[in-house]
């Protein structure tokens, strides 16, 4: 079956042309199109009068259900007259209170990292992503990772040795954003991640940088 007709055949179907007005080479196509449309273009179906009755009876049953009556009562708009007798200063006080409450709420909504271990600072906290930290430190007795995401606490994010190969690893959930960190070897030696970019830490040393993208994000 054809999926598209010649423009003149379409005009034939639209009733703008007759079959006789088509060029001879398009007549076969026009006849086929008319045959297909004719097969689909059947006479209107006459519905039984009893069908109307059955449909309306079902609608009345549905409308008469108690739950529907309650819902209609709750949902029907009504005129309500409310009269208030107030002193002007109470209106102003109420307005001020509402404004103050709004200001407080907005103030709380601003990103303000709170104190305490495990605080995730420096990042938009829209989402958290699991990030794996790996360090090759043969001979180390213990390794931890400390950074802006855990208040530089060198005790709360230890790495565990992966077998006896000298590779230490851990996985942390970090918020989307950019974080600075360093590895702490044996509780005292701070070293940057050789696999990550590093920036000046302000003390004459370096911090590694990890960029955490939202899940599904892609890079160039």
């Amino acid at each position, binding site marked *: 079956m054809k999926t598209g007709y010649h423009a003149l055949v379409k005009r034939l179907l639209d009733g703008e042309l007759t079959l006789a007005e088509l060029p001879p080479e398009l007549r076969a196509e026009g006849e086929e199109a008319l045959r297909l449309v004719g097969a689909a273009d059947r006479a209107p179906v006459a519905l039984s009068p009893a069908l109307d009755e059955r449909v309306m009876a079902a609608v009345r049953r549905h409308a008469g259900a108690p739950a529907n009556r309650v819902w209609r009562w709750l949902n029907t708009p009504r005129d309500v007259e409310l009269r208030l007798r107030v002193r002007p200063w109470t209106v102003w006080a109420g307005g001020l209170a509402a404004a103050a409450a709004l200001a407080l709420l907005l103030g709380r909504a601003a990103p*303000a990292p709170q104190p305490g271990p495990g605080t995730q600072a420096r990042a938009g906290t829209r989402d958290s992503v699991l990030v794996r930290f790996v360090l090759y430190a043969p001979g180390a007795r213990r390794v931890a990772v400390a950074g802006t995401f855990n208040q530089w606490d060198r005790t709360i994010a230890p790495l565990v040795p992966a077998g006896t190969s000298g590779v230490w690893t851990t996985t942390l959930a970090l918020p989307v954003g950019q974080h600075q960190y360093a590895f702490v070897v044996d509780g005292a030696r701070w070293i940057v991640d050789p696999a990550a970019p590093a920036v000046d830490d302000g003390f004459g040393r370096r911090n590694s940088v990890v960029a955490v993208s939202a899940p599904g994000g892609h890079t160039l």
Partner: protein
Amino acid sequence: MRTTGLTVGLVLATLFAGGLAAQDVPLRLDGRVSPEVQRAVRRIAADAAARDLPVDPLVQKAIEGAAKGVPAERVIAAVRALAARLGEAREAVRDAGVAAPSGHLVEGGADALNAGLSGRQVADLVRASQPPYDAALTLQVAATLAALGVPTGQAFQLVQGMISAGRSPSDLLGLPGQVQAGVARGATPAQAAAGLARAAGGAPPGRLPDWVPPGQRKPRNPHKP
């Protein structure tokens, strides 16, 4: 009477809400830094809070220095320098039309200034970072690129170019890692950044060549009525 009490309470709470962060400083520093650093940082933080600057980065820097065993006077100097940069960054961000910048944004501006970007470049990047871009992250990315050795002008142009090309925020965040990877392959930071800038010039993956970033007008199709 009850209404009045509530009103007064809420108004007072609003007035003091801005000072809460500064009051938290001793609590956060307690046991983490030496008494000498704590005293100095409390003073610096109180001054910063009075100037409406974020206090959290100062506390973080003090804690970081102490955790790393940095001498007290060096920690105090670093915190003081950071407070000054936060002040400059706040001005740059305000120049971009952000009247009341968040602490996070000011901190991003301070990172960028610290990396060598100018106040004007900071303001331009803030202006360019309309949603879905987070201006603070944009600034941090530019700062990291510069810290990696990408010339500041080039870092600024690369980030700005990525935004105007409509690259995703994730693409932006991935830039420092991409530069790092380029350097690991033997390129200079400038060469690696130039390669990324060229790649950013085309349409993002999966888009038609005539794709334009959201919010920009597509060229009129002359064949369409």
